[in-house]
C-alpha cells in the first residue's frame, strides 16, 4: 500500500508540474476546450486514485472540481474568471495535500469547504489562503524517466553487439590470440551478460504490482455502491515491462470501476435475474507469445447496446443515420467515444464519459489493443492485449530465395506445409488462395512479391492482421529469434512492407516484415462484411470448449476441454484390470482408467488423460474428433443412464446432433483412489529368486509394489511366503504359496504359485481382512 501511495504522490506531483502550463493557459482563455480536458483528466485521475487509496479529503476536492468541469464540458455552465480561480485553488490545494501526505505532515482542512463552496455559480471570489510551504520528505527510491531506461537498454544492446563483433574478430584473426586477451574478453562477456540481465530486469515488473491495488479498490467501490463483488485475481506472477505496468494502471482502474458500477447489478436485481447475489469479477493476466493478455471479466448485466446507441444520438456524437448504418461491433465500440456516458445519473465512481476514451487512448499509445466480448444480461469480458516489451521482439525468421526476413511472432497464427488435401494452393481468377483444413484465405507469395523467385511456395505462414488473415507463402522457416528491432530509414519504410530493421548475431542486417503492410501492398481486400461478421461472432460469449469424441461403445460424446491434460495413444497391454478397477500403467505410474466398452482386439487405444489438478485418470475412447463449444443449454441426464455411457452430465445439441456430455465430476468422484502410493506387497524370499523374477512383475502389473524388505516406517499391505519356507514375523496378513498344483488338505489356505487369478484374488482378499 505504501508503494501505491508513493506512486500516487510521485505521479500527482509530476502531472501537476506537467499541467501547470495548461492551467496558466486556461486561466487566460477559459473557453479553451483542450486545456479544460487535460485539467479535467487530472482531477478525474486524482479522484479515481483517492477512491482506493482512502484519501477522502482529496477525493472530496477532486470530485467537486470534476463536477464543475463536467458541467463546463457538457455546456451547462460557462466558465468565468471566478470559477477558473476556484478550480485552480482546488488544484493548488491538491498539490499541497499531496506534499503534506508525502512529508507525513498534517494540513488544516478548515478552508476546504470554502474552496468547494467557491465553485458554486454565485459564489464570491475566493480570498486565497496562503499555506505554509511544506518540506519534502527524502525518498529511498528514484523515479526514472522511461526514456532513460530505454536509452540504457539500447546502449546495452549496442554493447552486446560490440562484444560479439570483438569476439568474431578475435576468432577470425590469423595469429593465435594472447590468452590474456581471451581471458579479458571472457570477463567482459560475463559482465555484459550480467549487465544485460540487470538492465532487462529494471524494465520488468510482476503484474502483481498492477493488481495489488485491486482488492481494496473493489471492496471500497462495491461497498460504496451497495454491491457484493467477489474478486478473483489470476496470473499475478506474469512479468511485464515496467512502462507497460505504469501505462496500464489507469486503464485497469477505469475498467474495473466500470465493471462494478455499470456491470455488476445490486444484489436484489441479481437475485431477480437468477444469479447469485455476489457478483464475480475475474482479473487475470497471461502471456501469449510476446503479448500479455489482461482480462477483466464480470458476470453483470453486460452492455445494453441499444441504450448506448440512444445515448450517442442524444448526445449528438453521431447522426441517427450514421448510427443505423453501424455494425453491431461498431455500436459496441461507441463506449470508447469521447464524451459518451451510458449512465443517467452521475456517481462518485464513474459515469462522466471520461474513462473508456482515456482507456483506449492509453492502450493505443503502448501499441496494444482492446477487445470486448459482450453478453447482454450475463456479463462483459474485456481483454487488453499489450506487447510484452517495447524493445525486444520475439520473431520467426523465414527464408525467401537467398534472403531472410523476420516476422513478429504475435502476428503468426500457424505455419503449415503445402501438402495433400489439407493444405493446398488454388487460383481463383488471377488471385491466389489457399485452403487450410477447409478454411479458405488469400495468399501472398513473398518470393514473387519481392521479385526473389517464382513458383508455388512450399511453406505457408498464416498471419492475422487487424483486417483479416491471409497466408504468406515463403520458402522456409529458419529459426525463432529474439531481436532488438529498430526503425529503418525512410527510404526503406517507404516500401510499406517492413516494420523495422535488426542486426542478428550473424552480423547480416535483416528486415522485419509488416504483415498488414504486405496485405495492403499485395492488394488484399478484406471485405468489410466479413470483418463485421467476424467481429459479431466475437461479441458472442464463447461457450465452454469441449472435445467431441467417439466413445468405445460407438456413442458420440463430449467432455470439457479444461479437464483434459492430453490425448495419447497407449498400447492396450498397458491397461490391466486389477484391484477391481481398470488401470493404465504409464510412465512408471498407474492411472485409473475408465472405459465404457471393450477394447476388442486392438493393439492400442486412444486415451484422454484427465486431471483435476491433483489426481489423474484416463478415459479410453475410439477417436477424438474436434473441439467444439458447448451450448449454454444442457438437458440434464436422468440418473445414470442404464446400460451404458458411464457418468453423463446431460445431453447437449452440437450441430443439431444430440451429444452426451461426460460428467468429469462423477468420474473423479467415483474414483476413490487418488494418486496414492500403490499398496506394498512384502515378498519373503527364499533365496531361489523365483519370487523376484516370476512373482514380482505379475504383482506389480496388478498395482502392487513389491519389496523384499520393508524400509523404515513402511508397512506392508500383505506378505507372501512359500509354504516350506519359515515365516518371518510380520504384521501384514500372509498369503502362503505352494509348489504343487493340489492342496494337501481342505483347510490348506495356500495357493498354487502359478494360479494367477486365485493368487491375485487371495491377495486382494487378505488385504481387505
Amino acid at each position, binding site marked *: 500500500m505504501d508503494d501505491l501511495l508513493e506512486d500516487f504522490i510521485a505521479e500527482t506531483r509530476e502531472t501537476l508540474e506537467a499541467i501547470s502550463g495548461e492551467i496558466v493557459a486556461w486561466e487566460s482563455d477559459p473557453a479553451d476546450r483542450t486545456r479544460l480536458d487535460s485539467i479535467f483528466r487530472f482531477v478525474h485521475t486524482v479522484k479515481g486514485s483517492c477512491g482506493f487509496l482512502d484519501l477522502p479529503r482529496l477525493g472530496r476536492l477532486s470530485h467537486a472540481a470534476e463536477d464543475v468541469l463536467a458541467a463546463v464540458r457538457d455546456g451547462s455552465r460557462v466558465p468565468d474568471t471566478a470559477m477558473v480561480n476556484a478550480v485552480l485553488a482546488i488544484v493548488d490545494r491538491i498539490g499541497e495535500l499531496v506534499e503534506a501526505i508525502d512529508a507525513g505532515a498534517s494540513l488544516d482542512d478548515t478552508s476546504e469547504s470554502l474552496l468547494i463552496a467557491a465553485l458554486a455559480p454565485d459564489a464570491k471570489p475566493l480570498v486565497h489562503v496562503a499555506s505554509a510551504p511544506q518540506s519534502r520528505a527524502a525518498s529511498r527510491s528514484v523515479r526514472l524517466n522511461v526514456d532513460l531506461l530505454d536509452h540504457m537498454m539500447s546502449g546495452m544492446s*549496442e554493447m552486446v*553487439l*560490440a562484444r560479439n*563483433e570483438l569476439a568474431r574478430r578475435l576468432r577470425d584473426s590469423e595469429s593465435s590470440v594472447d590468452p590474456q586477451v581471451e581471458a579479458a574478453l571472457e570477463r567482459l562477456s560475463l559482465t555484459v551478460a550480467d549487465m544485460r540481465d540487470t538492465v532487462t530486469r529494471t524494465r520488468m515488473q510482476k503484474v502483481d504490482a498492477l493488481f495489488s491495488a485491486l482488492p481494496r479498490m473493489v471492496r471500497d467501490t462495491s461497498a460504496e455502491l451497495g454491491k457484493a463483488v467477489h474478486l478473483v485475481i489470476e496470473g499475478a506472477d506474469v512479468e511485464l515491462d515496467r512502462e507497460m505496468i505504469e501505462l496500464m494502471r489507469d486503464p485497469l482502474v477505469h475498467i474495473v470501476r466500470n465493471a462494478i458500477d455499470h456491470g455488476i447489478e445490486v444484489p436484489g436485481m441479481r437475485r431477480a435475474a437468477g444469479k447469485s447475489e455476489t457478483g464475480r469479477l475475474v482479473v487475470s493476466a497471461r502471456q501469449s507469445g510476446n503479448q500479455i493478455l489482461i482480462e477483466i471479466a464480470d458476470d453483470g448485466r453486460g452492455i445494453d447496446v441499444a441504450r448506448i446507441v440512444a445515448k450517442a444520438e442524444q448526445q449528438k456524437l453521431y447522426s441517427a443515420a450514421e448510427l443505423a448504418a453501424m455494425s453491431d461491433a461498431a455500436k459496441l465500440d461507441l463506449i470508447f467515444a469521447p464524451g459518451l456516458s451510458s449512465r443517467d445519473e452521475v456517481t462518485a465512481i464513474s459515469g462522466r464519459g471520461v474513462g473508456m476514451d482515456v482507456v483506449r487512448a492509453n492502450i493505443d499509445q503502448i501499441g496494444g489493443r482492446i477487445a470486448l466480448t459482450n453478453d447482454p444480461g450475463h456479463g462483459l469480458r474485456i481483454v487488453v492485449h499489450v506487447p510484452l516489451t517495447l524493445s525486444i521482439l520475439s520473431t520467426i525468421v523465414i527464408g525467401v530465395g537467398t*534472403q531472410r526476413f523476420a516476422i513478429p511472432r504475435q502476428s503468426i497464427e500457424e505455419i503449415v506445409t503445402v501438402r495433400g488435401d489439407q493444405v493446398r494452393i488454388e487460383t481463383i481468377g488471377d488471385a491466389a488462395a489457399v485452403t487450410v483444413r477447409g478454411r479458405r484465405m488469400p495468399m501472398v507469395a513473398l518470393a514473387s*512479391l*519481392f*521479385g*526473389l523467385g517464382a513458383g508455388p511456395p512450399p511453406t505457408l505462414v498464416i498471419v492475422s492482421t487487424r483486417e483479416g488473415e491471409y497466408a504468406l507463402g515463403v520458402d522456409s522457416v529458419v529459426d525463432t529469434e529474439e531481436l532488438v528491432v*529498430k*526503425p*529503418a*530509414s*525512410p*527510404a*526503406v519504410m*517507404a*516500401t510499406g*512492407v*517492413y516494420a523495422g*530493421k*535488426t*542486426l542478428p548475431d550473424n*552480423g*547480416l*542486417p*535483416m*528486415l522485419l516484415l509488416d504483415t498488414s503492410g504486405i496485405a495492403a*501492398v499485395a492488394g488484399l481486400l478484406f471485405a468489410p462484411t466479413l470483418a463485421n461478421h467476424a467481429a459479431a461472432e466475437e461479441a458472442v460469449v464463447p461457450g465452454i470448449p469441449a472435445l467431441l469424441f467417439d466413445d468405445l461403445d460407438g456413442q458420440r460424446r463430449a467432455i470439457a476441454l479444461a479437464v483434459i491434460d492430453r490425448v495419447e495413444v497407449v498400447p492396450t497391454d498397458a491397461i490391466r484390470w486389477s484391484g477391481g478397477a481398470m488401470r493404465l500403467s504409464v510412465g512408471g505410474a498407474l492411472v485409473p482408467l475408465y472405459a465404457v466398452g471393450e477394447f476388442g482386439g486392438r493393439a492400442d487405444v486412444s486415451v484422454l488423460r484427465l486431471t483435476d489438478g491433483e489426481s489423474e485418470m484416463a478415459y479410453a475412447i475410439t477417436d477424438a474428433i474436434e473441439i467444439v463449444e458447448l451450448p449454454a443449454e444442457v438437458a440434464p441426464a436422468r440418473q445414470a443412464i442404464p446400460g451404458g455411457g458411464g457418468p453423463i452430465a446431460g445431453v447437449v445439441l452440437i450441430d443439431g446432433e444430440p451429444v452426451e456430455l461426460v460428467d468429469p465430476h462423477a468420474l473423479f468422484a467415483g474414483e476413490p483412489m487418488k494418486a496414492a502410493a500403490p499398496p506394498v506387497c512384502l515378498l519373503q524370499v527364499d533365496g531361489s529368486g523365483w519370487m523376484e523374477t516370476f512373482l514380482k512383475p505379475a504383482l506389480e502389473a496388478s498395482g502392487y509394489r513389491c519389496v523384499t524388505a520393508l524400509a523404515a516406517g513402511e508397512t506392508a499391505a500383505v506378505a507372501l511366503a512359500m509354504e516350506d519356507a519359515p515365516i518371518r514375523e510380520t504384521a501384514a496378513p500372509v498369503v502362503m504359496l505352494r509348489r504343487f498344483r493340489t492342496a494337501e488338505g481342505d483347510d490348506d489356505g495356500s495357493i498354487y504359485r502359478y494360479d494367477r487369478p486365485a493368487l491375485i484374488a487371495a491377495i486382494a482378499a487378505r488385504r481387505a481382512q
Partner: protein
Amino acid sequence: MSDLFLVAHIAGRGVAIDAAQVDSVVDIGDIVAVPRAGTFVRGLAALRSRVVTVIDTGTALGLAPTPDTARRAVITMVEGHHYAILVDSVEDVAPFQRLALSPGLALQHGWATAGTGIVERDGEPLLIVDLAALIPASAPVV
C-alpha cells in the same frame, strides 16, 4: 572563409562533400538487398553494430548504377538514420572556399538537385554535393 571538404569521385566526376555531413569513410561488407525499395537503395549493411542503408549513388543521381564492386562509402546521418553513400574513390580532405554555382550552368540529372555550389581545387572546379539530396525520400523540397 573556407570550410573543410572531402574530395571524392562519384560517377567518374570529382565532387566536394561538406565535411560536416561526413560521419566516416568506410569500406562496407556484405549488402543485404531490400526488395521493393527504390532502386537507389542498394540494400542494408552492417557497420559495426549499426545497420546502414546503402545508397546506389549512380541511380540516385539519375545516371548509370554504381557498379556492384563499389565498396567504398561515405557514411552520413540524415534525419537520425545512417546512410552509406557509395563513391568511386575518396581523395582527401581540405579547406576550400565555398563558391556559388556559376550562373547559367545547366546541370542535368540529379546533379541539379544535389549540387549546391562549387569549390575550386588548383583551378579545377568541383561541384559541392549535398548528400542529403541523394536520398530522395528525405530530399528537402527546394
